[in-house]
């Protein structure tokens, strides 16, 4: 937002690009869970564009992003975050868009030293070079700490009116926002990708391990964001919704999964994957019963529907809290 505004204040025409990889914390994840106390849902990219008065183009890169995540040239960060490859990929996509729409250069809101992998003095040039953007990539918030880029050398942009921010502190950005009259802004950079999240990365690794294949579809990675995921046996996975919003969302997956719908008490919908017989179904049901209002009852009833559409009633005794083993949780 700041970088775009700084360019606008120099009289340049700016348009926004927002790439949707499927791993974005924004938007859809806010839409799933029930929470009456949360601030109104908004897509921050759209909101920022509206505040700035610029067009925003949201680009679906779900399929193309697979090669970035599955085969990162520069490896992963602390979790499954391929930040350097990701940044290179996105700047490369921005370059494609720039060329297709007759723009002159690309800006990002990056700050030197802000992030440990993709925003370092030694990795900034890697992104510029490997994306193909080279010196048409300008980072207005830290440009004064970098060699002049083409827009600066050509005088399209006044370098003196750019900034030299560095480090992990957000204080200079917050001060600049205040100076520009920007009082409300989206969350600071970082923390907007599930791949930086340890728990999510663990679930994604489990998905690959259980399938003996490093691949995914959009539905797979969306499901990893929803519900409690438990693996009580190597071949058996149980996904239990955490609230009514997640139950509603998981209902959309009923045709793809065996599922358990609690009928005797209020309780979450549960998806079951990999069950090999009645013992596995009963195990899944006893887990599911633990998370409904009948957790203290002697018996909880479910409508069980197999992936093939076969329905039957099922009664089980809920597990006690100690019987749901900690290492079942993914």
């Amino acid at each position, binding site marked *: 937002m700041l970088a775009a505004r700084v360019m606008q204040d120099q009289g340049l025409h700016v348009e926004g690009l927002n790439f949707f990889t499927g791993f974005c914390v924004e*938007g*859809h994840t*806010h839409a799933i869970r029930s929470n009456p106390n949360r601030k109104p849902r908004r897509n921050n990219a759209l909101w920022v564009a*509206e505040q700035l008065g610029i*067009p925003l183009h949201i680009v679906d890169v779900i399929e193309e992003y697979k090669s970035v995540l599955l085969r990162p040239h520069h490896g992963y960060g602390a979790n499954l975050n391929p930040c350097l490859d990701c940044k290179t990929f996105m700047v490369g996509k921005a370059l494609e868009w720039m060329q297709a729409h007759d723009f002159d250069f690309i800006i990002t809101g990056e700050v030197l030293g802000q992030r440990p992998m993709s925003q370092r003095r030694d990795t900034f040039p890697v992104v510029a070079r490997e994306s193909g953007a080279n010196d048409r990539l300008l980072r207005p918030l830290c440009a004064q700490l970098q060699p002049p880029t083409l827009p600066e050398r050509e005088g399209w942009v006044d370098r003196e009116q750019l900034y030299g921010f560095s480090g992990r502190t957000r204080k200079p950005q917050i001060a600049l926002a205040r100076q520009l009259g920007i009082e409300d802004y989206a969350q600071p950079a970082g923390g907007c990708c599930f791949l930086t999240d340890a728990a999510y990365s663990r679930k994604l690794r489990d998905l690959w391990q259980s399938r003996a294949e490093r691949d995914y579809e959009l539905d797979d990675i969306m499901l990893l964001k929803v519900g409690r995921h438990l693996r009580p046996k190597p071949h058996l996975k149980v996904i239990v919704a955490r609230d009514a919003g997640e139950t509603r969302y998981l209902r959309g997956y009923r045709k793809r999964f065996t599922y358990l719908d609690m009928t005797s008490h209020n309780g979450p919908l549960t998806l079951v994957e990999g069950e090999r017989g009645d013992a596995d179904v009963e195990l899944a049901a006893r887990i599911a019963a633990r998370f409904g209002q009948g957790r203290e009852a002697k018996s909880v009833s479910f409508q069980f529907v197999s992936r093939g559409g076969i329905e039957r009633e099922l009664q089980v005794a809920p597990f006690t809290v100690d019987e749901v083993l900690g290492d079942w949780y993914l």
Partner: protein
Amino acid sequence: MSTHQLDATGLLCPLPVIRTQDRVATLRQGDVLSVHCTDPGALLDIPAWCRIHGHELLSTQESEEEVLICIRVRK
């Protein structure tokens, strides 16, 4: 001028916006697009996208099962 339907049910934000954006790119000035969604977030996001790009929001309707957003394309 013609009326078109877009099924964005089962998709979560921002996919309904992306599908709307891509569909509108194929339409002509004055065409009407009815977008069917199940993500209530679309009630905020698609109108915001319309405001940014200058398209006219004709109506929004929300029922238990579905959100319906009608827009007129302005180019």
